[in-house]
């Protein structure tokens, strides 16, 4: 079946229909890593959490750090795409899909992390039988479930027209596209229904997304522990999450642009706009970090100061200052300069931010635990091989998830791009005209 419009967007469909060797190679490597991680996890199940580097008083380590980190990354997606859609930013069109996919995959990974951390995962059903919604941990369970459901739906609905394109092309497996396309024919009524649904969801998804990371911050800030007990934690975590999400999105975009040769869709301007958003988030992140530590320092509460100095000049100083560099100085230098705000520079800055944000989660979780109020026990935390391999496994699941998604579905929303071509210029012109100041004497309205 040949269609001129399909030909136009063939680069988006091609990777689905022609599977290269590279795909299988990648999948094999990733599955190998995942199987190893699974093996390590089953070993942990049998032997006990002692195989990790956790101890008394450092009861939480990599698993919780990665949980917060991955859930943070998840804000890339739905939130950004919802905000961009809501603000009618036209340059969003090739971006939203990838952002939404990140969210769905990463949420699934992040949501599983607390289970990795459980001493008795076999008793997880206790949460259902006799849970307590008073515990911030259950707030998390609820809001992550809600976010996961909402963002999956939010990923799926805009995917329907694209699935229909694939169905119409007869792409294999046919039944899958038939099943998922929900009888989409592209009629006006269908379009209206879909658009209405999407706009309901995008309004709903924003508060849910914000609630998710706020609630995650509550896990820490609801306790009385020095370094955690802070009112700023909710917005601080949300800002950090969006920050790391954008960085992750940029990396994914650059990767697909390179691998799938999407230069025609993802243009410099997209990166430039997103990276300016990244820069703004970097400044905002720094502002929150600064406020957080300044209030701690100014109050000079002894236990708080113990944690403070542990981060600033103690054992965690290398991580802390690396974080400041990666999250603030490095992106600031690179992104505020037009000459370096090019794709390689943006990639470097984004990688820096992802690493920096991971470090930030580490710096929030561990030092408060290694410095308990009582002088004993004192904590040292060195993650073990098990924790590292599960981290690697989680990253592999993320990449594998993306690779598989890209195998079956277009990573850029075809119909939105087309819609853009067809209608955007006219709509935008009309819209802009509508905000232009009415010249004196002309009829308003």
């Amino acid at each position, binding site marked *: 079946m040949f269609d001129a419009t399909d030909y136009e967007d063939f680069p988006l469909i091609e990777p689905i229909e022609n599977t290269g060797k590279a795909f299988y190679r990648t999948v094999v490597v990733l599955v190998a890593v995942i199987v190893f991680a699974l093996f390590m996890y089953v070993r942990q199940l049998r*032997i*006990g*959490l*002692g195989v990790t580097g*956790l*101890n*008394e*008083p*450092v*009861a*939480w380590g990599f698993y919780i750090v990665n949980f917060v980190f991955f859930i943070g990354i998840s804000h890339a997606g739905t939130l950004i795409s919802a905000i961009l859609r809501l603000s009618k930013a036209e340059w969003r069109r090739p971006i939203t899909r990838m952002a939404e996919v990140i969210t769905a995959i990463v949420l699934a990974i992040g949501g599983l992390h*607390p289970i990795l*951390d*459980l*001493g*008795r*995962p076999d*008793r*997880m059903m*206790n*949460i259902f039988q*006799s*849970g*307590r919604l*008073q*515990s*911030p*941990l*259950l707030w998390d*369970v609820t809001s992550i479930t809600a976010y996961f459901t909402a963002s999956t739906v939010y990923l799926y609905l805009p995917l329907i027209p694209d699935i229909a394109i694939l169905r119409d092309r007869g792409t294999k497996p046919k039944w899958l596209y038939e099943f998922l396309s929900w009888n989409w024919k592209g009629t006006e009524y269908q379009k209206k229904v879909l658009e209405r649904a999407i706009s309901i969801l995008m309004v709903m998804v924003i508060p849910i997304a914000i609630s998710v990371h706020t609630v995650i911050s509550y*896990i820490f800030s*609801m*306790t*009385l*522990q020095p370094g955690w007990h802070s009112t700023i934690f909710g917005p601080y975590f949300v800002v950090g999450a969006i920050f790391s999400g954008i960085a992750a999105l940029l990396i994914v975009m650059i990767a697909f642009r390179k691998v799938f040769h999407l230069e025609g869709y993802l243009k410099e301007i997209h990166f430039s706009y997103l990276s300016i958003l990244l820069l703004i988030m970097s400044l905002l992140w720094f502002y929150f970090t600064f406020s957080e530590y300044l209030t701690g320092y100014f109050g000079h509460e002894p236990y708080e100061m113990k944690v403070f100095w542990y981060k600033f000049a103690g054992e965690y100083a290398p991580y802390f200052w690396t974080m400041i560099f990666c999250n603030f100085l490095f992106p600031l230098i690179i992104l505020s300069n037009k000459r370096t705000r090019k794709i390689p520079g943006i990639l470097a800055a984004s990688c820096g931010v992802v690493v920096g944000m991971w470090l930030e989660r580490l710096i929030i979780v561990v030092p408060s*635990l290694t410095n*308990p*109020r*009582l*002088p*004993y*026990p*004192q*904590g*040292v935390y060195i993650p073990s091989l098990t924790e590292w391999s599960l981290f690697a496994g989680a990253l592999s699941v993320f990449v594998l998830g993306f690779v598989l998604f890209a195998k079956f579905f277009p990573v850029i929303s075809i119909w939105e791009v087309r819609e853009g071509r067809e209608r955007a210029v006219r709509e935008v012109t009309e819209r802009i005209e509508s905000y232009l100041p009415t010249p004196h004497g002309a009829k308003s309205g």
Partner: protein
Amino acid sequence: MARWGMVVDLDMCTGCGACIAACKEENNVAYVSPEEAEKGRAISWMQMVNFVEGEFPNVHIKYMPRPCMHCDNPPCIKVCPVHATFKDEEGIVGQIYERCIGCRYCMSACPYTVKYFNWFEPEWTESTIASMNPDVSLRKKGVVEKCTFCHHRLQKARDKARAKGMEVVDGDYTTACADTCPTQAISFGDLDDPNSNTARLSKSKRAFRMLEDLGTEPKVFYLSEGEKNV
């Protein structure tokens, strides 16, 4: 209804550690291997905490035995997702080992670090198996455990009292640590009973509580050391 509490007179406490040992024996607390202990995984429901101040020769060390504080406003209970840690009507903060899912949130939330986790399946040596206290249940791998104010002793005392048709009152039961303290620095009893020695001591001018300003309302009181002047 009694409200059980403890008073530790730091002026009499010599930091000998008898309370630690008595507790371990009484409550079937498992031993971890030396390598694991080195990693900070030893379990000791009662722990001696030292505060070292000053420099030679004006050094001062304060020893404080630290059981679970059995807070009236316990930070650990608030965060438990499954009702595994709870406060009973007599104020004792307990842990249901069979329900605990091992999320260790309570450990992270406790400002006194009194909660301990079983990182591995406890390995019982012949001698510990032989001397198990049949009154205290054993913990398995992956659950959190803590001081219970020797709750099994309370249950026994209650059974005895009920047989006589009475309520448990101050003096009917005491914890293993209070029982064994050579200087009797630890006293245990009903904080609400006006005739109780423990209650009287808890209202002493010397009385204070650990990290009192956190508002956790611990039921373990400390009596400060006398003034040192020679």
